[in-house]
């Protein structure tokens, strides 16, 4: 059966409601967070209603069932990413996943292989979300390591002309986004990964904006760590994932300390459990892990290839329609080559906040501002942009509504 976003939409109860005096909801803010299908909402509720107990802890039937559900969710995530079951760590968000890693690089003491010193270098890019920038800035400050970054070209691509000079032999971590949440740019990983591995650095991928939208296989990408958030992947809030190679996780020092992450404890010392347990302190976000598994099952049933193809087509339509409007100034690549279905732009003299407000009055949800990528926004020479981000439940009608909304805003703010 052909992929049909209108059929998909029926799985998402939020589309049954209306916005601002009866308008149809045109949700173009999935880059911030996605909507949830019934199966995800029910998986979480069902866990509470039927199987709720603390995992790994009780010797009773509910605890067994909860453990099965939680560990089953881990297996689902592993399969979705093409990683091993013991390579999946549940966190509360991609933000926590990336912080976990950045702390781990200074938590292990001088004999730990991840320990950074002032002799080392950390490489990021100028298009990072704050969540994949500030943790590394802080690690640099803590450890004395140097922070360096790939620049962004005027057309919104990474400038890799200085690849070998940027990823120096003393580079220990290269952390970058798979797809920019502002530009849509999908970064070319092969050359970066090859160079990083050549110098013995690990590659960390912020996959927040790729895992929801395209097939992502950690083995094929040959990366070392990957982070994404459940809530952008039609999953619940309060759940994120860190995938890491087993061979690396085994030596990765812990970040959060508490119950269930230990092998033994005295008043003065503790010995850590093996991964992934070592990295999951306390009673976990069980219902959210189960909800995330339902989300990935939902996406898998539709097919990530189908979703990708749909978004490529719809993204091309969005770019085309936007460029027909005089005054629209797109940031980021102008074609769909290595690019996702998100468009950030300015509109003449109309401030993004005002445009966003007008669109909202028409039922159209977009995001405005610097999109938590302030250095990038500054580099692009804009104060703020308006961002429309598409997902599996959007269709051409939604894009048409946006275009009409933009024309309406020009009229509204121009006429007055």
């Amino acid at each position: 059966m052909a992929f049909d976003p209108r059929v998909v939409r029926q799985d998402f109860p939020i589309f049954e409601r209306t916005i601002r005096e009866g308008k149809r909801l045109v949700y173009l803010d999935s880059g911030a967070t996605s909507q949830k299908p019934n199966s995800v909402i029910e998986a979480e509720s069902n866990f509470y209603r039927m199987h709720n107990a603390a995992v790994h802890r009780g010797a009773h039937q509910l605890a067994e069932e909860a453990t099965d559900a939680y560990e089953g969710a881990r297996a689902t995530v592993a399969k979705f990413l093409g990683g091993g079951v013991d390579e999946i760590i549940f966190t509360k968000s991609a933000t926590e996943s990336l912080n976990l890693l950045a702390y781990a690089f200074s938590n292990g003491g001088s004999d730990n292989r991840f320990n950074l010193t002032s002799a080392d270098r950390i490489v990021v890019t100028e298009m990072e979300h704050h969540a994949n920038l500030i943790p590394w800035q802080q690690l640099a400050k803590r450890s004395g390591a140097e922070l360096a970054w790939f620049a962004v070209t005027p057309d919104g691509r990474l400038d890799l002309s200085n690849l070998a000079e940027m990823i120096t032999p003393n580079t220990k971590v290269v952390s970058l986004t798979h797809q920019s949440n502002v530009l849509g740019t999908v970064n070319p990983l092969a050359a970066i990964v090859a160079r990083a591995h050549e110098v013995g650095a690990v590659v960390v991928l912020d996959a927040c904006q790729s895992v929801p939208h395209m097939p992502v296989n950690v083995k094929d990408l040959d990366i070392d760590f990957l982070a994404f958030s459940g809530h952008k992947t039609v999953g619940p809030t309060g759940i994120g994932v860190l995938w890491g190679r087993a061979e690396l996780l085994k030596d990765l020092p812990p970040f959060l300390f508490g119950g269930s992450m230990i092998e033994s404890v005295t008043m003065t010392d503790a010995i850590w459990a093996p991964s992934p347990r070592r990295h999951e302190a306390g009673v976990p976000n069980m219902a959210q892990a189960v909800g995330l598994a339902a989300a990935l099952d939902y996406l898998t049933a539709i097919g990530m290839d189908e979703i990708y193809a749909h978004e490529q087509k719809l993204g091309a339509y969005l770019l085309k329609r936007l460029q027909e409007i005089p005054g629209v100034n797109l940031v980021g690549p102008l074609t769909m080559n290595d690019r996702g279905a998100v468009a950030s732009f300015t509109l003449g003299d109309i401030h993004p906040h005002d445009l966003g407000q007008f669109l909202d009055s028409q039922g159209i949800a977009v995001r405005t501002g610097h999109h938590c990528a302030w250095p990038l926004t500054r580099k692009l020479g804009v104060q703020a942009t308006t961002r429309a981000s598409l997902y599996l439940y959007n269709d051409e009608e939604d894009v048409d509504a946006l275009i009409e909304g933009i024309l309406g805003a020009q009229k509204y703010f121009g006429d007055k």
Partner: protein
Amino acid sequence: MQLDSLYQEVILDHYKRPQHKGLAATYDAQVHHVNPSCGDEITLNVALDDDKVAAITWDGVGCSISQASVSILSDLLLGKSIAEADLVLNNFTELMQSKGTMVGDDAILEDAVAMAGVSKFPARIKCALLGWMAYKDAVVQAQAKL
């Protein structure tokens, strides 16, 4: 249309013809405020004459609400005593937090009552207050110098 309650004529007028925009060369205090959620910025200069607001000038980039609001503010507070200006400031802040339940006292707020509609749009309240918070900060700094 609900939107018109936000974008009153007065607001769009101030947005298009901002008052006291352009920083004066002399001042008692200069502050720079930013709205971290959208990046809007404002620089505001204040000069005092004893307990009177002798000059307010500003520059900045931002949405119609933030620009109009600071423009209205500078018209409104200029020449007032600091105490009078405080009254206006408190009145305005209260209006912004009223969630659409107040219309604003136009004897005190004059043109600024046009901002009443903003209080129904929580995401925009910070825009409207940006200039006022900058003014508040600047006066404290200027007074500290007296």
